[in-house]
């Protein structure tokens, strides 16, 4: 919603808020730059500044939004491997958090710019090499997020049944084609164990514990509703390796679970919970979270139909199947940890294995009919990154960058740049990153927004300040963007989807949903999406 812009403003304010005078002033100054900057001013004044953004999630869209607003010569082509946009806003945000998906309205507004093109259904690096893009762009921004999740590395984890990655489960109930056929088994028992204590773990717990009728009007996948309606899960344990002060989830998600109707919460044992004197001295956010956890839920365990708990100081060891029903998971074995006895309630305290008097590690079996791992996501290198001079940091799971989103080169082969701390690093001209592939898979949409704005600002600043911030030397880039790439994509048999195509898919999903009393009914398969636009 946007209210009408006021017309009665002074010149200064028109310049700073109104848009046009400001923009013309910027354009003027760009074209008047002296000769050492001719390369960039050439782009700014004679043809559009062509940017490819890889990935159409929040990071890509917020970067596009900022770039289009601050660089009037910028034309953005946004590449997405699925036919449809929005990444984790569509496929990661829980269906019962529709308000978080409101950011899609902003993204839709961004996409309405004549300087924005959506290129969906093109899996860069796999269907189309990244090197095909390079000749046609002045800059490429990677915002493709995290395509995998971290594994525990314990025996039994790779079982095809009853053991799932939380990422796959979230994708499954959100209608992500990649996990359309997961079909989790929620009927072989009543106990679910989730390893990991972040927001994804709590999302999984909430979906398992929610009354399925409360989810019916959301955009949760229909097949997921059917499976969840048959679920026998009554008890969910969310297990962490460390203590309460080290949980990664945020307070909103915890509060939501504690308020879930007919679901009780097992109080956290007093010897694990930090004492009140420690809690009251914590920084605000942590203090409020600890106070909430200490207070627990007001739902009476006697009348509750389901329950959940947070279990601390347990490291997963292995999984066990029932001797009688070999397809039924029976329990998970954990080793006990203990807080550092010298400083147990320091948030940065390490934990150590708890040993019995015999010297053996203390262990515990926790009943589990279904088991989820939820210990974080992981970005992978896009095939062909190295052809562009990017050495993916596999350890940290990020594209190496200078913190502002400029891709840096470990081999010092790129453009040297001085950092505020005085050190010199070399950046690879014209290459940028934003979002989880830039800073690792943590944070909420607000953090990704801030991060994407930082990268977009860096691009704008480079274009204005630096004499060599583009992918190519003057005259070496075709400047055609998608128009230059399209022929090769089509020759490879790719059928790219446009924003108009997405609008048709969107309308079809909403229409299907309306018939079922839902916001939308997502197509769970790529072919179903394409059928809408090809018919």
């Amino acid at each position, binding site marked *: *919603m*946007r*209210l*009408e*812009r*006021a*017309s*009665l*403003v*002074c*010149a*200064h*304010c*028109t*310049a*700073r*808020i*109104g*848009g046009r*005078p*400001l*923009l013309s*002033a910027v354009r003027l100054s760009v074209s008047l730059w002296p000769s050492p900057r001719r390369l960039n001013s050439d782009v700014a004044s004679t043809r559009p500044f062509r940017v490819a953004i890889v990935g159409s999630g929040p990071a890509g869209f917020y970067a596009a*939004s*900022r770039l289009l*607003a601050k660089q009037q010569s910028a034309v953005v082509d946004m590449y997405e491997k699925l036919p449809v946009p929005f990444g984790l806003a569509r496929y990661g945000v829980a269906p019962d*958090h529709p*308000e*978080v998906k*409101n*950011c899609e*309205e*902003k993204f839709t507004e961004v996409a309405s710019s004549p300087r924005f093109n959506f290129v969906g259904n093109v899996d860069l690096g796999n269907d189309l090499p990244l090197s095909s893009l390079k000749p046609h762009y002045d800059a490429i921004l990677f915002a493709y997020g995290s395509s995998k999740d971290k594994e525990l590395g314990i025996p039994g984890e790779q079982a095809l049944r009853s053991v799932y990655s939380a990422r796959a489960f979230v994708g499954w109930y959100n209608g992500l084609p990649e996990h359309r056929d997961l079909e989790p088994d929620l009927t072989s028992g009543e106990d679910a164990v989730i390893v990991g204590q972040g927001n994804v773990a709590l999302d999984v717990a909430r979906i398992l514990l929610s009354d399925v009728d409360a989810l019916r009007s959301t955009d949760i996948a229909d097949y997921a509703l059917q499976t969840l309606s048959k679920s026998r899960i009554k008890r969910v344990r969310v297990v962490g390796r460390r203590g309460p002060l080290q949980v990664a989830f*945020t*307070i*909103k998600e915890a*509060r939501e679970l504690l308020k879930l109707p007919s679901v009780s919460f097992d109080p956290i044992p007093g010897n694990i919970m930090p004492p009140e004197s420690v809690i009251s001295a914590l920084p*605000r*956010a942590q203090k*409020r979270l600890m106070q909430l956890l200490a207070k627990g839920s007001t739902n009476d365990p006697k009348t509750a139909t389901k329950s959940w708990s947070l279990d601390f100081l347990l490291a997963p060891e292995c999984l066990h199947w029932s001797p009688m029903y070999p397809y039924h998971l029976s329990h998970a074995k954990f080793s006990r940890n203990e807080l550092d006895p010298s400083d147990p309630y320091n948030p940065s305290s390490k934990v150590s294995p708890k040993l019995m008097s015999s010297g053996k590690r203390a262990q515990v079996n926790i009943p589990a009919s279904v088991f989820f791992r939820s210990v974080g996501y992981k970005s992978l290198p896009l095939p062909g990154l190295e052809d562009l001079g990017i050495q993916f*940091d596999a350890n*940290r799971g990020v594209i*190496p960058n*200078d*913190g502002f989103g400029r891709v*840096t080169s470990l081999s010092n082969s790129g453009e040297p740049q001085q*950092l*505020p*701390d005085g*050190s010199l*690093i070399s950046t690879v001209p014209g290459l940028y990153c934003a979002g989880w592939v830039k800073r690792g898979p943590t944070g*909420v*949409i*607000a*953090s990704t*927004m*801030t991060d994407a*704005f*930082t990268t977009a*600002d860096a691009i704008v600043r480079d274009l204005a300040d630096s004499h060599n911030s583009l992918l190519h030397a003057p005259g070496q880039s075709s400047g055609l963007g998608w128009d230059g790439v399209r022929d090769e994509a089509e020759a490879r048999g790719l059928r790219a989807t446009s924003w108009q195509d997405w609008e048709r898919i969107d309308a079809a999903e909403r229409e299907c949903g309306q018939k079922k009393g839902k916001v939308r009914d997502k197509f769970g398969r790529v072919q179903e999406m394409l059928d809408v636009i090809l018919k």
Partner: protein
Amino acid sequence: MAGGNPVQSAQNPPAVVASPALVHGVCTVFPRSHYTAEARINVSFIDKDGTRIDLQVAEGDNLLDIAQANDLEMEGACGGSCACSTCHVVVEDPDMFDKMEEPSDDENDMLDLAFGLTETSRLGCQVLMNKELDGLVVRLPAMTRNLQASDFEGK
């Protein structure tokens, strides 16, 4: 989103009515839809460049809608439903902060995640203007962070 550094326009200034003591950065901007409303409440925003923008608004408007209607650099990622922290504002005067209704648990939960949280932080979408708050001044925290030492870890 069209904000940025104040730039002196070379164009002729448009006609200005009202405020006799007009100075740069201080003028009356309000949505046309409110133009004829009677109750006018003063509210000022200080943007991240330190520029102060004085506005007159109607009772019941929230700070996010006001900021967006006036093209101030404030995002409302969740559309003003108290589900993110992108419309974080800092109330300049603690006494004015105390005049406001207490933030709800939900709002405090979101503020916990805000960059640069202060003792007088609020979410813009949750602050509804009323006559009590006439003269309110709020600051928009810098949205893009500065580079920190942690950014160089492992490099």
